[in-house]
């Protein structure tokens, strides 16, 4: 029996049963092209990130860590449909997760496609989308997903995989020896995208020895010609300057070996 469950908004809410049927509710996505998760890698269209030994990582969900018992879940009642946070479809060993978006809950007028349609008003319907945000395979204890941001509501703590740097971390990064801020740019001006890169860059810098840091700074200087330099320091005037320096720390710049051309790696995959 396949189950469609709904998780409501609110901290204490449980999963509720929506539908149980013997037919397939959601189409199982093709999980042949998978990559181990890394924040630097940008997925191709048909690729999925995967996390092995998922239960051991303790990103709790309230559903996948327990044995599945359909009779445990209460039936959803009419007043609760508008509060659905995400849908979970349990098909055999697979748990398919789909985040609810506001346009899935349709409260428009509608009619059935038949010979004698009647107008239905005030009868909201919920549309099940085709895409799937995450798949958990109970058989091999693996989570497949496309975007951490989309599944952070489903698995507690998983945003740590793609965390945003805190203000303290941003301050710490901007006060490193090779960075100076111009008068028009302060640490409060750093936007979300760069904060994520800073979180990553700090981890990278921490893994470097002082000489390696020096190396990476020189490497970055050779590529980031557009960033003003004052002695040994990059002078950050804009978000863009900060981004270029952060790319440098991740060593995303490279030169092709035949007909040398300087390039930026949009996505990184360890070989």
């Amino acid at each position, binding site marked *: *029996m396949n189950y469609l469950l709904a998780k409501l908004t609110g901290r204490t809410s449980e999963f509720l*049963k929506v*539908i*149980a*049927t*013997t037919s397939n509710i959601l189409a199982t996505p093709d999980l042949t092209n998978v990559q181990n998760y890394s924040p630097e890698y940008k997925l191709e269209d048909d690729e999925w990130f995967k996390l092995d030994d998922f239960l051991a990582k303790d990103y709790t969900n309230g559903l996948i860590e*327990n*044995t*599945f*018992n*359909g*009779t*445990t879940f*209460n*039936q959803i009642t009419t007043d609760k449909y508008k509060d659905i946070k995400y849908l979970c479809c349990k098909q055999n060993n697979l748990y398919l997760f789909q985040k609810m978006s506001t346009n899935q809950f349709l409260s428009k007028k509608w009619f059935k496609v038949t010979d004698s349609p009647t107008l239905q008003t005030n009868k909201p319907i919920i549309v099940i989308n085709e895409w799937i945000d995450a798949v958990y395979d109970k058989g091999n204890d693996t989570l497949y997903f496309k975007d951490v941001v989309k599944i952070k509501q489903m698995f507690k703590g998983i945003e740590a995989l793609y965390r945003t740097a805190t203000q303290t971390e941003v301050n710490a990064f901007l006060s490193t020896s090779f960075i100076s801020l111009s008068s028009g740019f302060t640490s409060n001006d750093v936007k979300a995208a760069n904060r994520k890169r800073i979180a990553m860059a700090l981890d990278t810098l921490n893994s470097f020895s002082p000489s390696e840091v020096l190396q990476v700074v020189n490497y970055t200087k050779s590529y980031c010609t557009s960033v003003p330099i004052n002695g040994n320091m990059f002078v950050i005037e804009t978000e863009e300057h900060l981004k270029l320096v952060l790319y440098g720390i991740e060593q995303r710049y490279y030169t092709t070996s035949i007909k040398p051309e300087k390039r930026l790696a949009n996505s990184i995959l360890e070989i």
Partner: protein
Amino acid sequence: MSYIFRLFLIINSLSLSFLIFAIDKKVTLEWMEPIFCNICSFAVGKNILTEFIGNNFYIMLNISSYLFYFTCIILLSIVSVYFIKFLSSDSIEQDTLTNIEPANDAFLPSYLGYFFVALSVPDIEIFFVVFGIIAIFIFYSRISYFNPIFFIFGFKFFYVINSNNVKVLLITKKELKTTKSAKFDQLKRITNYTFIDTEG
């Protein structure tokens, strides 16, 4: 949908009490007498059978009234079993049950309670008031819908506990003994704690 079905189940489960009440207070289909006589004289005229019925009319009336009530009760139950298929589906997977205990015995005392109430109410108004209140309580308590007529159809009542420690009432035709290999693919949900098995 489940509301209608639950209302049906409650009426069913209390209807036997009405039979007891009717027998106790001799509530019969007496008003049928003139109609019946007319039909008899009009259709068949006088013969031995109608004479026999005429002589023993009141004894026959009592028995046939009670039989009529009982048939109605059975028919109501058949209708409610038919309604089951419109309820929402559910299942219990193999090896997820940890405990099975028969619930038949647990219900009989409360059912006897209904019978005693039925025997002691003085008239039909009080009967409907008392059982109306009982019906409302059963409806909103959403726990049990015990109907002894289901035994005649071969259903049995079990309390089962699953691996998440949730105890539910299961109405099934299967003979449950062990939790091993206990598996229900065609359950229907009456309430969140009451499930009925349509297999078999």
